[in-house]
């Protein structure tokens, strides 16, 4: 199929001027997504990007597909209606940490548990960009912002933990600047049937610059980044200082020097039926320093999709009752006739 369509990155670009701040991480994500789309082998007209409100949510304007820039927080709900009524489409949601987890938190968790066929790209810059720098539900505790001059008081959400708790069938994390990794995660999400949540660490160089620097800086990132790969040992670290993740007798995970861990290093299983390992992995990083942060696919399991189940119910009904006849319905069974 991909070779039949022969689409290129350029085909997915629009003539609209991109309006993010120079240096914003959103550019890199846009480039990666535009670069990735041709490999899907899906015609442009069968792809829809739906977003909420925020800097990140401007994304659909720059994708030469169908696009809907909606209202703050509601994109998962709107996309649910679209995907449920049009299972033939490839529906992508673009949202921010405020959009998805604050005002739209309710819609996000319900989309995840329903397993509607949606690919949700959550651009997490740990700040409200568009409204000029208030703290967000993923900002670290004590964050000093315009709205929290004395430091924020509320503990942040960990989007991966949240999604796993919300019965998500696919949960991954990646980073704006790592195009290769980002693309591989997009690929896995696209192949997944059902709702996929991809948290993308995204730098807002204006209001929260360097929030993920430890995970990006070539010189240090290996020490803070765990690259999860299904079937592979969960290990990380610099050349000379490798660590592995092991499970303690009390079931918690622990980071131990690799040579010490030996055979007990955990093997990543993204397809594990229960999300307990994925959840434990999501709890590894220190919320303040984000170290060590696992990236990659935490969980990828199969469950029937909502849109498919809905379509099946319609088909079943038509098969059992015959395709609905309006006159018959209106007449019903309890009538009388005046002649």
């Amino acid at each position: 199929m991909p070779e039949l369509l022969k689409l290129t990155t350029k085909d997915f670009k629009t003539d609209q001027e991109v309006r993010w701040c120079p240096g914003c991480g959103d550019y890199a994500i846009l480039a990666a997504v535009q670069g990735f789309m041709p490999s899907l082998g899906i015609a442009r007209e069968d792809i829809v990007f739906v977003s909420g409100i925020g800097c990140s949510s401007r994304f659909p304007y720059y994708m030469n597909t169908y696009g809907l820039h909606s209202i703050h927080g509601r994109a998962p709900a709107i996309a649910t209606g679209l995907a449920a009524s049009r299972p033939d489409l490839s529906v992508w949601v673009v949202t921010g940490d405020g959009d998805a987890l604050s005002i739209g938190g309710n819609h996000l968790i319900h989309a995840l548990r329903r397993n509607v066929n949606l690919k949700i790209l959550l651009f997490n810059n740990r700040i409200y960009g568009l409204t000029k720098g208030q703290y967000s539900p993923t900002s670290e505790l004590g964050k000093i912002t315009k709205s929290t001059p004395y430091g924020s008081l509320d503990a942040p959400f960990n989007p991966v933990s949240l999604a796993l708790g919300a019965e998500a069938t696919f949960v991954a994390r990646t980073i704006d600047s790592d195009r290769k990794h980002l693309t591989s995660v997009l690929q896995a999400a696209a192949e997944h049937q059902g709702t996929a949540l991809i948290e993308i660490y995204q730098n807002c160089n204006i209001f929260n610059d360097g929030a993920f620097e430890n995970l990006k800086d070539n010189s240090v990132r290996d020490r803070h980044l765990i690259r999860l790969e299904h079937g592979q040992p969960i290990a990380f670290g610099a050349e000379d200082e490798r660590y592995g993740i092991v499970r303690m007798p009390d079931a918690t995970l622990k980071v131990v020097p690799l040579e010490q861990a030996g055979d007990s290093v955990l093997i990543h299983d993204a397809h594990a039926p229960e999300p307990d390992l994925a959840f434990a992995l999501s709890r590894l990083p220190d919320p303040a320093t984000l170290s060590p942060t696992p990236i990659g696919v935490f969980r990828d399991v199969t469950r029937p999709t909502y849109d498919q189940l809905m379509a099946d119910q319609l088909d079943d009904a038509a098969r059992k009752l015959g395709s609905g006849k309006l006159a018959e319905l209106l007449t019903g069974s309890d009538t009388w006739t005046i002649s």
Partner: protein
Amino acid sequence: MTKQVEKVDRVIIRFAGDSGDGMQLTGDRFTSETAAFGNDLSTLPDFPAEIRAPAGTLPGVSAFQLHFADHDILTPGDAPDVLVAMNPAALKANLKDVPRGGTVIVNTDEFTPRALTKVGYAADPLEDGSLDGYKVHRVALTTQTVKVLEGFDISRKDAERAKNMYSLGLLSWLYHRPTEATVTFLEKKFAKKPTIAAANVAAFRAGWNYGETTEDFVVSYEIAPAPMPQGTYRNIHGNLALAYGLIAAGHQSGLPLFLGAYPITPASDILHELSKHKNHGVRTFQAEDEIAGIGAALGASFGGALGVTTTSGPGIALKGETIGLAVSLELPLVICDIQRGGPSTGLPTKTEQSDLLLAMFGRNGEAPVPIVAPRSPADCFDAALEAVRIAVTYRTPVFLLSDGYLANGSEPWHIPDVADLPEIAPNFAAGPNKVHEDGSEEFWPFLRDPETLARPWAIPGTAGLEHRIGGIEKQDGTGNISYDPANHDLMVRTRAAKVAGIAIPDLEVDDPSGEAKILVLGWGSTYGPIQAACRQVRRGGQQVAHAHLRHLNPFPANLGRILKEYDRVLIPEMNLGQLSMLIRARYLVDAVGYNQVRGLPFKAAELAEVIKNLIESDAVAKVGV
């Protein structure tokens, strides 16, 4: 004993009992029998919001009123001729509505000292003369039912429960109702419990026989069928008619119906109904909240479905932002508001018309939305089709403003011939619509039809028409983001002009003599009471005109002219004057309001009084006394 048979032209019966007494079911069954017999009828269920309110209390009383006649009637009736009171609470809550001389049938078994004290009766009203002047029938309904069911292998509780069927049997005898359908109904309802089915049928028959044999009832009544136009009829509730209207609109437009909804009284039955009809291609989505309900419906519309959301006032309050988005996106969407008493949770099971201004203005920015209102339960069908026609033709969200009275009330419905239903053409965009000077072609999502000002509806899957739209102001034509002041001014005015220009029929005035000086203007569910009141006034030799609005936005083009043709305009509403405010502001007419928010429909007699007073005071004013 030979019994007399008296012919009467109409009767109003009210069944009242505890929430657990099955009064709604009893009322429904009597209604079905009456419909099948061919009387015209109108019903008014009136029940508490609590599922099982404390037994034997005043707030726990559930009632069902039915008006049926040998002629065309319009309302469930003002005052019951017959009250069936299953317990002291039901008597106490309802007796004041029964005029002296009326018939009261009481279940004496429930008139125990404890039950009487519970509702504050110091003495037994059956004994202390409270019922003097009424025709009282004291029936030991519970005991008699239990006795009849002695031979059945059922619990005492189940036997007692069947007393509503005993009372139905008695009333069915009293008014010569056909009984076969009720027997069939009971057998079907309790198909899984044949003993219970048999017991209920036995109780029903016993009630009938009791009427036939007891000396307490010496007269029974005949109400001849009402003349109605030829055709096939069924009895229908407003919510069912509304659901059918939506399904019909799906068929007529060829669009798959998608309902996004969150349960709320009195709208939930539409969700329940639509979810049964998957073989008509209907998708129903019970969302996590009202915002998601409308969001999903709008998303479905974007994808080429007929997006619908159903709710009541509190839900509309939540949906406001998404309705604004739909206005901005210019996509078809139908928003059904089954109004109930407000503000806040208000009176969930009672009726009101107090969301008109919310529908009209309840959004940020200039966000005009067309409004359609049904006038009777059966009319909900046509109103739903009309709402869809406007939504699809003009690419706009449309409000369908029903209310609790229409939702739960019922009347005979002349089942339409499907061939006569309006066609609704979605006219999806199929190709580019903009030709540039150099001959190149492009798709512009906001290039409008010059006639309707509607924009093209290009749905995903259509190659070459990929486009991006959103809630940010769009450039006229291209639909690209635009913050240009002149463009915004143009777009705001264009959206307003589009709604103002929606083609709707002229308003018809009912003024048989053509000599009326007073016009009564109404909208929505007040149609029945207003029309009945006008007929009463005319029977008294005075003249009055009645016009009833189906479209509240835009108003019919001839409304301004009509208003000016009358000396006075009276606007009765179940709110504090919302249509009045619109009419006064728009047409500078000094309309007089008559307003009630009692959770119940207007009484025709009361309205007739108001109209007469206005006619008389107006005449006096003119003579210049």
